């Protein structure tokens, strides 16, 4: 009884949202990757340029997808692939390395609610995804004619992809016990899905069964939606895409919130 009252007295009472705390966590997350920008910004940009070069040389000549030249078709796919992989990488590696260094307690101790932690981490990851994508977009625009056909769709799909992957990375980081676990998820799930969901070719090249399956794959809708924003050409339904992506984001954010609230694998 007594101890309870004492706890109440010494605990700092923050009414409303701890904006300063969220901002601090967010900037920590951003500085963490900016410090090693060679690996986190430069390397993915070069990878994207390499893909464009190789695929351009192999398939570039007189090949078209719908009304687009192959290169125009490919560029938005590469942009989305970059967002997906990098937003995921940031949160997952940040959390797992803190867990391994046992410094995660420094993030859990400050008066941040589970929701505030979720927001800080996910926005940090999303920032990396979008920043790399901006770099890739600027470098690709030298070679590929990029037109902003529908800026609303571009912003909607890129931001929702970034926060979606940020939250998936957060969940993976919390769940993982070793770096190996993170690289398993990255290599068996994230990489194959980001490569094979219509980044490099229209999904009508798939066998029929996989084409049907693609219509339940959120990565496909993200890539397709971003491509629609840039080129006004899409394979799937944009409305379905918007709804699916929003629902998935709500589900993932709630799961992250729940994991941090109960302290799943981080407060055990």
């Amino acid at each position, binding site marked *: 009884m007594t101890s309870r009252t004492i706890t109440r007295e010494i605990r700092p009472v923050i009414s409303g949202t701890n904006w300063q705390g969220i901002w601090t966590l967010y900037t920590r997350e951003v500085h963490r990757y900016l410090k090693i920008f060679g*690996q986190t910004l430069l390397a993915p940009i070069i990878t994207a340029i390499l893909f464009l070069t190789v695929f351009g040389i192999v398939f570039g000549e007189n090949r078209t997808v719908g009304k687009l030249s192959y290169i125009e078709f490919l560029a938005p796919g590469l942009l989305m692939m970059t967002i997906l992989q990098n937003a995921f990488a940031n949160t997952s590696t940040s959390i797992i390395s803190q867990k391994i260094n046992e410094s995660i307690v420094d993030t859990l101790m400050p008066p941040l609610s589970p929701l505030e932690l979720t927001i800080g981490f996910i926005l940090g990851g999303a920032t990396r995804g979008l920043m790399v994508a901006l770099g890739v977009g600027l470098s690709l625009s030298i070679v590929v004619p990029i037109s902003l056909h529908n800026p609303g769709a571009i912003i909607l799909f890129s931001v929702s992809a970034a926060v979606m992957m940020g939250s998936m990375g957060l969940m993976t980081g919390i769940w993982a016990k070793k770096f190996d676990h993170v690289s398993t998820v990255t*290599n068996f799930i994230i*990489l*194959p899905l980001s490569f094979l969901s219509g980044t490099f070719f229209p999904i009508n*090249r798939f066998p029929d069964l996989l084409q049907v399956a693609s219509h339940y794959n959120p990565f496909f809708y993200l890539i397709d939606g971003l491509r629609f924003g840039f080129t006004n050409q899409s394979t799937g339904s944009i409305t379905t895409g918007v709804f699916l992506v929003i629902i998935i984001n709500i589900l993932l954010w709630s799961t992250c919130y729940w994991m941090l609230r109960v302290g799943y694998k981080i407060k055990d």
Partner: protein
Amino acid sequence: MSDPKHKTKENILILLENRPETEPAKGKRNWVGIKTLYMRETNRFLKVYFQTVIVPVITTMIFLTIFSLAIGRERGEINGIPFTQFLAPGLIMMAILQNAFANATSSILGAKMQGNIVDTLTPPLTSHELVLAYASGGATRGLLVGIAVTLSMIPFTPLMPTSIILILFYAFSASYMMAIIGVIIGIWAEKSEQLALITGLIVTPLSFLSGTFYSIERLPQFLQTLSMFNPFFYAIDGLRAGFIGYSDSPIFQGILVMIGVNIILWILCHQLIASGYRLKE
């Protein structure tokens, strides 16, 4: 009581008198030492086999999938050879090049950063012996990944070797070439970020753009000429010749280049270690 300092000196002298004789000058090689270092290097990557062997296999298989799907029903051919059959040897060589390079770099840089490189430099191993053991460790990783990639491709593409000797020669010479470059870069690098930059800016682009995915006939004339000075191109081209019997350049020229590059790199690496550059400073 005797002076402890004096006693230490005495002990050292006794140790020095009783140390095993290796006498590299008389042509005696420290084979036990080479084998030990080689086993250390090999076990180091086998312990994390998931990241060092399985992940590269998956990456390569994803590439094969993308390209076979993208080329799709058109069944493209390069000089009369089905595209996937043309691509497969290129991907195998790409995996060999990248992985043989990665082993020694991370091993040496890791040891330097943790300050335990001295444990490798103190034992009685000459610089030739160090190069041999480190390079063989890296080459083993490259070859192992190459074999794993080849085996996992067989169910999807017909891979019939036309010349086993060419395949073996190019697989070995390319692995050793990259492994020695890895040793040199590992010695030179001081931060892991420098490694990431070399890998991202030089090794990956070269292994991507040296004819892995296409015949260099597709390139502008200027780049075709430049390819003739690119050892990565010969490695990829030669392995492809071993598998499908088609090559962009004369095989004899490729063999000479690979041998020459290996010898030059070996001498350079030996000189670096012998001088103690960034290892004994």
